[in-house]
């Protein structure tokens, strides 16, 4: 499965469009990470736990999008976009969407 963030797959031509596919997850962090983050909020710097958490959940969202694309019979997803929104305190929604296509 090829994923790109542009409107084509370079070097290949699109033969069929299957429409929009999307995947999302809502994740909450756990207490241990929260305490560490609270400490880091005083000293500043990178919150590694959060970075890791968001990366994991983002790949989960991408996986869901790919499953959906596979079901439609696509072999590539183009024009992929990411968006993040915090839905509740301590929970973030990670949303990824793109266009499923067949390329040759």
């Amino acid at each position, binding site marked *: 499965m090829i994923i790109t963030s*542009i409107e084509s797959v370079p070097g290949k031509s699109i033969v069929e469009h299957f429409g929009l596919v999307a995947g999302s997850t809502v994740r909450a962090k756990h207490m241990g990470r929260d305490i560490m983050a609270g400490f*880091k*909020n005083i*000293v*500043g*710097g990178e919150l590694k736990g*959060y*970075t890791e958490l*968001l990366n994991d959940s983002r790949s989960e969202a991408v996986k869901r999008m790919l499953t959906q694309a596979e079901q439609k019979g696509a072999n590539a997803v183009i024009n992929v976009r990411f968006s993040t929104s915090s839905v509740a305190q301590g929970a*973030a929604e990670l949303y990824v969407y793109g266009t499923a296509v067949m390329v040759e």
Partner: protein
Amino acid sequence: MYDLIIFLLLVAIGYISGTIAERRHYRSIEKREQEILSMPLVSLKTQPRTGRTVRESRLVMGSAVISIDYFKRILAGLRNIFGGEVSSYASLVDRARREATLRMAEAAKGADLVLNCRVETSSIGQSANKRKMVGSIEALAYGTAIFYEEAG
């Protein structure tokens, strides 16, 4: 009284460690930015006409969550009273974005160029939904890495 002492202690800790961490981070960012100079990260959607054939293209991304220190948060709180540029947050956002962009570039190692780079920012964490407070922000950078066929 104790509250005041704790408050001042937090401000002092925040100031010292925050400054050290920021300086160290900027040094590392600048060093790594030098290393990736040979790989252009562009926001164009189409590739420049080079006449070379593309071997592979794939999505690459990188993200970083950076938190502000206590001292700067107080500083920004004061800024909310007087107005004007909040320079203490400017460095926070700048660091997060550049770090995310660098991680994207590192994920695209070996690529000839990265097309359609986009950077997104969102505030997350404890204070994300509280008014007038930004605790930590996440920057996400993503793009399409293009690998050309070897010339000749």
